[in-house]
């Protein structure tokens, strides 16, 4: 029997209901907003004393004063004299709690009078209905944090079936920037999932889109600032306090094509950083991501479909064309367009296969422009370096760094990767059974207003149907109110860090009590409010600092590589495959080659990963005859010059 903390009270003006009750406590009781309490009823119902669990949502304190003026009068307007009163005014601490659970559940009655106790571990488990999934052989519990109140310190678990599907799925995180909420919480929760997701539920991996700065660039590096309290939290929650063991980074090249466009460019970390490049085939499937409705009318759409179905990746000939084409890259597509338009001009044709020349020119302009707009990601030559779809590894993290890319390129990457994940999960050929897709700045990709975009439609699709496939969206944003309602509405679990008061004033937070909103706006680092399908009310938990190096510390510890020359970029890329590659060797090898040719050779070598890197690389460069010095030629004796006075000389 725990100590009595308070007593339930109810008045006609403020009655108790089945979902809310009131209680008072001593002034020094360890009760606060978010505290979970147990009420032991005094009157048996159906022969059993009812027990109710609640979480404190509001607190009141007042005295027996009718008006503050009476206190002013009582102290002659001198606030400093209050301590001289021999008696302290009677004061009350009155709390309102939202019911988490009734035991027994039926009949559902208003909470009756009774004693109030601080919830212990078992109470917390019962109150949050964790007793159904956090214990036993078939447990599906994923620790999300530690609930603390008074002397109680209880782990709070999410149900994997409701976090990663199939019952419910998806997670949404809100919080102001810079207070270790969103990214830290996701890093912590992924670690927890990897540590606790039951093996019999299948294999799980994560694909994280790094959309800003170096946030997710050092997930495989250990944290430098874990203190004892963090380690204790990790131990209590059963999660190893160590960085992710299996992380792969993907980033497109910069526009120049020398280096990868990522802040994880330090050579010491290059071993698991891979290029992300796509060719025509990959991009054409998602042309609508990059082409807005103004670009694509029905006629243009028809031509694009024709190109996709009849031109790309197959021999194509036509009487208008000067020669046959096999289009496999943007460069070859441009050649095809040029040949076609030239042929039409030569034959003075205004249309070709029902497509008007203006439509052809427009589509040519828009499609060939893609490789320019997404330079670094989209290659003219069709080189493809992609995520290992089909060979995803269990408990692996795949980070796609799109932080430094243009919006178009970001959208294209997101759309294609998610589509691939979806297709592979549908066909069970991804390599894992569940994929967590983490997207930050969700309000940018799935805004509540603005035009319909391909990416938003895709996010809606994941949110509404992804759980059946094992495609789980973990999304974060600063302002939840600015995200499409159907996206956040389909997230079974929601985490809230410190919130902006203006955001809390929006209608989406109206169900929270003013005190809870106030607490949300003043949450410390490492604190979260959690909503989960099993919890009838949100609860507050504390989680440890991530065991991985933060982005800010990472860029200090692993400074970004300096702007590279072509030679050094190639050296670095090849050295990952063959450490014997030196800068001098590369300089000698590419001395006569064009820049595009060198980059193409490097990309092909990276894709092929040959045993003999040097030979393979050199074989990708055009053979050239070595220049010979003109000085080595035999000198021919000059002709004798004419006499100065020769009138016929030149």
């Amino acid at each position: 029997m725990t100590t009595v903390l308070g007593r339930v009270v109810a008045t006609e003006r403020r009655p108790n209901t089945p979902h809310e009750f009131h209680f008072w406590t001593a002034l020094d009781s360890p009760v606060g907003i978010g505290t979970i309490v147990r009420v032991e009823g005094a009157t048996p119902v159906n022969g059993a004393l009812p027990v109710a669990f609640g979480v404190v949502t509001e607190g009141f304190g007042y005295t027996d004063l009718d008006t503050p003026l009476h206190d002013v009068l009582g102290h002659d307007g001198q606030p400093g004299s209050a301590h001289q009163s021999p008696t302290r005014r009677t004061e009350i601490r009155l709390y309102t709690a939202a019911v988490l659970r009734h035991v027994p559940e039926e009949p559902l009655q208003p909470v009756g009078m009774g004693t109030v106790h601080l919830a212990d571990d078992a109470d917390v488990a019962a109150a949050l209905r964790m007793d159904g999934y956090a214990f036993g052989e078939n447990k599906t519990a994923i620790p999300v944090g530690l609930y603390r109140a008074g002397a109680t310190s209880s782990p709070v678990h999410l149900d994997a079936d409701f976090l990663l599907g199939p019952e419910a799925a998806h997670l949404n995180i809100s919080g102001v920037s810079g207070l270790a909420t969103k990214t830290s919480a996701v890093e912590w929760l992924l670690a927890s999932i990897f540590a606790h997701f039951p093996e019999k539920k299948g294999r799980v991996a994560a694909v994280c889109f790094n959309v800003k700065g170096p946030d997710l660039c050092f997930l495989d590096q250990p944290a430098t600032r874990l203190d004892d309290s963090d380690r204790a939290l990790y131990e209590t929650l059963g999660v190893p306090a160590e960085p992710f063991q299996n992380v792969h980074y993907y980033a497109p090249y910069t526009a120049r094509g020398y280096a990868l466009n990522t802040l994880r460019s330090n050579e010491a970390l290059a071993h698991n950083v891979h290029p992300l490049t796509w060719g025509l085939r990959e991009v054409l499937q998602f042309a609508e991501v990059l082409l807005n409705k103004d670009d694509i009318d029905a006629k243009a759409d028809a031509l694009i479909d024709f190109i996709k179905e009849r031109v790309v990746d197959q021999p194509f000939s036509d009487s208008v064309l000067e020669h046959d084409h096999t289009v496999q890259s943007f460069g070859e597509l441009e050649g095809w367009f040029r040949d076609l338009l030239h042929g039409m001009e030569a034959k003075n044709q205004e249309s070709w296969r029902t497509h008007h020349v203006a439509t052809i020119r427009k589509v040519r302009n828009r499609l060939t422009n893609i490789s320019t707009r997404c330079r670094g990601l989209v290659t003219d030559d069709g080189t493809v370096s992609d995520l290992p779809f089909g060979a995803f590894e269990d408990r692996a993290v795949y980070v796609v760094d799109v932080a430094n890319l243009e919006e178009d390129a970001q959208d294209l990457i997101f759309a294609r990767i998610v589509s691939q994940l979806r297709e592979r999960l549908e066909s069970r050929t991804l390599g894992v059974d569940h994929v967590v897709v983490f997207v930050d700045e969700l309000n940018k990709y799935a805004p509540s207003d603005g035009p319909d975009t391909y990416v938003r439609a895709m996010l809606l699709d994941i949110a509404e149907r992804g759980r059946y496939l094992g495609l789980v969206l973990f999304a974060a944003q600063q302002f939840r109110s600015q995200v499409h309602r159907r996206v956040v509405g389909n997230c079974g679990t929601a985490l809230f860090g410190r919130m902006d008061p203006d955001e809390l004033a929006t209608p989406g937070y109206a169900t929270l009590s003013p005190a809870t909103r106030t607490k949300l706006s003043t949450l410390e680092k490492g604190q979260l409010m959690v909503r989960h399908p099993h919890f009838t009310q949100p609860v507050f938990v504390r989680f440890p600092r991530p065991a991985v190096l933060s982005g800010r510390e990472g860029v200090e510890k692993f400074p970004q590589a300096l702007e590279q020359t072509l030679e050094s970029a190639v050296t670095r890329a090849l050295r990952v495959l063959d450490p014997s590659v030196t800068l001098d060797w590369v300089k000698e090898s590419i001395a006569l080659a064009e820049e595009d040719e060198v980059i193409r050779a490097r990309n092909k070598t990276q894709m092929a990963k040959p045993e003999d890197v040097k030979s393979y690389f050199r074989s990708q460069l055009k053979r050239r005859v070595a220049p010979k010095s003109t000085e080595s030629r035999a000198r021919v004796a000059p002709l004798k010059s004419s006499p100065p006075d020769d009138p016929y000389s030149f």
Partner: protein
Amino acid sequence: MAPAADGAGAVGVTAVGVTAVGVADVLRALRAAPGAPEGGWRLETTGAPSLERMALEMEPPRLEAALPIEGEALSYRVLDAEPLAGFHAFLDGIQSTRVLQYLPGGVPLIFGTVAAVVRERRDRELHTWNGEPDLSTRVYVPTALTPAEHLRTFDAAGIPVHDTLDGADASDGQHPQLLLTLARTAVQRERERLETSLAERWCATRDQSVYVDGGISGAGLAARSPHAVGVVKSHRTLYASGDGVGVITRLRAGQRTTAFEIRSARRTAVASWYLRLRDGGDPMFALVRIEVARDTFTAERADEVSRWVLAERTPLALPDQRWHTMAYGIADCERYLRAIAP
């Protein structure tokens, strides 16, 4: 705890560990009993206010000469020293009555509740001394005018009954208003009994001062104790004559009169003086009369006790209308008793 009056306890309600009979218990017992009046037993709701609210005849204000014991005649003294917290506890009681029913002949059947408590001050907070108050609930009836079956019903239900006629014969009947007055007096005496009992127990077991609401001259042994200090807020009897009245009415805040002795045949002699707590236009505003045991009186003690009472001016006892004379500790006693009384 008040003595379980006349076998009370078989029926009751619980409030902070106190078991007492409530109005509902009485009505329940009566409904189950034979001899119900026409229309059945019911709570009288019309024309039957609480007796405390009835405009009962009261003694007219009067002056009464008292024997000076500090100087030759009543005069005033200025308290130079600052107020000082000296009380360790506060004692007060409450009473309430309800007319349950008028029996044939206009005989009132009255339910009375009285309670008294000592609220002890520890670390500037007030706590109930001994953990609970003294409480008494009874039915007040003139037994000679009450049908025998009703009395048997009360007895069977364990409801204590107080005879307001105190055994006197009333075979010729009584005026209903006189019966109400008798009931009110009986309830008041019961309250005084509880308060006296509490004050005596405090003084017998504690050697610290208790602030008693009202006079202490009727408080039995407490009236002789150095630990009981009575503070009287109402002044229908002003203990002064001639120039003494002016001395009292012209007192300024922090001034007291010289002391005098109050003696009566049925009460214990006490030393008393007037003290002005606050300045105001009304001659009786913030005026209290303090009583201490006669044998303990000295001028220095009067000054010291006056400083104690002055210290209790804060916190204000607002919103009580008597805030200008009432100590916060006494207001707390009343609030506590009203919260727990059935």
